[in-house]
């Protein structure tokens, strides 16, 4: 597993590819992050984060706050480190042996990389939805019930039933599957599977949900449903979403962070980033000059 994930994440960086225009041709100095990377009611604070895959530095000195109950979109060209950054937030990178994280990441002012921090507990607080829908090869019910079961969140079957129903309802899937809760989750359509994965994540009642291109494998209708869902979920959760679609970022997020070559170039209100970007690289990216 480790190697597969590592290749998927690190390959573009190792190849040093960054689209049609290279660093040199742009002749740009990265310098400080432009915009407002910090905010007052921060749920997660990251300070000077560096991530290495063996000797390759995938992320350079990123400082970014993620506000409570906001949806923040991470955008940028392939291999810019946005997925790597996302995975540091719930320590999914721990599963990759050669991955090393430096800097400070605070969740509610607690260092999540502290020796005493249990990654299992952290992942119960910071849930994750992946690019490709990955339901367990079990029934729909068992998919959603798995998290609550392993964490012992419910005391009896009735409570568990309620929690499963509530989670599926919040994910907008309950009406579609209520007659076949015990059918296999892998039998659903792609969009339904992804909403099942979201239901599975929210059943654990995390505080933050990380979404790694949750709609990139879905058709436009299923994508619209996921985006609608994200809008509803922000009432209760803090959401960090990595996306390749700038329209999607514009539609669902309040703030947008633009990554380039492992650096955080610009952070700002979504409206401002898309209408009036301050940094040259951001402007080139959103106007489609590369990416």
């Amino acid at each position: 597993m480790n190697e597969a994930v590592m290749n998927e994440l690190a390959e573009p960086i190792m190849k040093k590819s960054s689209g049609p225009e290279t660093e040199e041709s742009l002749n740009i100095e990265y310098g400080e992050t432009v915009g407002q990377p910090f905010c007052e009611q921060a749920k997660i604070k990251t300070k000077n984060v560096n991530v290495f895959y063996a000797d390759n530095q995938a992320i350079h000195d990123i400082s970014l706050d993620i506000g409570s109950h906001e949806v923040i979109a991470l955008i940028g060209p392939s291999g810019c480190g946005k997925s790597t950054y996302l995975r540091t937030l719930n320590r999914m990178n721990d599963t990759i042996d050669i991955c090393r994280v430096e800097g400070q990441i605070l969740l509610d002012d607690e260092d999540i990389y502290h020796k005493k921090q249990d990654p299992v507990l952290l992942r119960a607080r910071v849930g994750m939805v992946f690019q490709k829908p990955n339901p367990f090869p079990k029934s729909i019910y068992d998919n959603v019930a798995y998290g609550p079961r392993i964490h012992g969140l419910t005391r009896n079957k009735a409570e568990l039933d309620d929690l499963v129903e509530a989670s599926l309802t919040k994910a907008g899937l309950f009406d579609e599957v209520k007659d076949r809760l015990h059918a296999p989750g892998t039998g659903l359509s792609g969009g339904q599977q992804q909403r099942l994965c979201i239901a599975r994540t929210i059943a654990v009642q995390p505080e933050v949900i990380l979404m790694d291109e949750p709609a990139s494998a879905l058709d436009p209708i299923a994508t619209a449903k996921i985006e609608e869902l994200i809008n509803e979920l922000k009432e209760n959760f803090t959401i960090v979403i990595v996306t390749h679609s700038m329209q999607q970022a514009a539609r669902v997020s309040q703030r947008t962070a633009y990554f380039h070559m492992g650096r955080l170039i610009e952070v700002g209100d979504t409206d401002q980033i898309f209408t009036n970007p301050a940094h040259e690289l951001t402007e080139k990216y959103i106007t489609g000059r590369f990416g």
Partner: protein
Amino acid sequence: MNNTDLVKKSLQKRYLKERIFKTMGFVSIATAILFLLILLTDIIGKALPAFSQTNIELQVELSEEQLGINANSSEDDIRNADYRKVIREALLGLFPDVTKRKEKRELYSLTSMGAEFQLRDTVIENPEFLGTTQTINFLADDDVAGVVKGNIDRNLPESDRRVKNQKLGWIETLEANGQINTTFNWQFFSSGDSREPEMAGIKGAILGSFFTLLVTLALSFPIAVAAAIYLEEFAPKNRFIDFIEININNLAAVPSIVFGLLGLAVFINFFSMPRSAPVVGGIVLSLMTLPTIIIASRSAIKAVPPSLREAALGLGASKMQTVFHHVLPAALPGILTGTIIGMAQALGETAPLLMIGMVAFIVDIPQSVVDPSTVLPIQVFLWADSPERGFLEKTSAAIMVLLFFLIAMNAIAIYLRKKFEKKW
């Protein structure tokens, strides 16, 4: 010439190459099937006579005076009575003109050595037969069976024939009287080995193989799966682990007789475990099977998509929960297939078991893993080594039984793989 013509020209050549390749593939498969058919036909053809049993029907007079017992005698007395004499009397009654000692001995050898025990058991089961005359089917000697089944050619000159003219005459008389019959050879499946081909059965070897495989499975499956899980999911990536991995692969290629020597030296000489016992055989075979199952399990675990692990980890499952709740169930079909193939390999293994004494001649049917016993492939080896003509068909029959178990195990492996296979 334009491009199209050039392509057309080269196409002919390409298609020709393809046809030649296809033909070669077809020919090689056909050859393989042909040899398989020849092998199976030969084995089955030779084995079939072993499944029929030749009997001689004799009227025996179970007089109380003759046997020296009556219905009230103790069981020991009934057991020890002289049944051989009764059978001999019956044979003499059929051919009263036999008087010379040597001829009498020949005559008595028409029935099997086991006939008297057969009669004894019949009397013990049916005490009311005492004092009456009964018609009973007695097991014929393997020479008689050979003549009846045609294994011994009646037209050969007497000097070249195993059964002499006088005996052949008796057999033909019995046949003419309708006193020789053949039945299905249940005894082959219900008795242990014997020096007499007509009495030898395979049950001892089947049970020996069963007990041996039981020990092998009980030891190698949990150890191998645990090792595979550790190496694949938990082990750090360092030189020591690499070294272990390489050696597991090497172990799979070690000649099996070396494991036998190891078993002899360690388990029997050092730990003083019983000789010829399935428990030692099972331990030795599990050493041999471990690498097979480990390698199969590792590749099955490796084939589980990483997204499944990520899903579980992302929900806050611990590493252990991830492995046991998700990875292992998904890898199970591959693990089971590897295990059954390893078991089938162990079932057919002979060499290491020779070293630990499972090649001994054992008549008793083993009752547990510590009783001396033999296994199917060694039974084949032992019978193939015996000079009596009657063991030839037994050898083929034992091969058939062995092949049956191998095919059955592989069929189970395929069934399990199909049943548990999950679509992602």
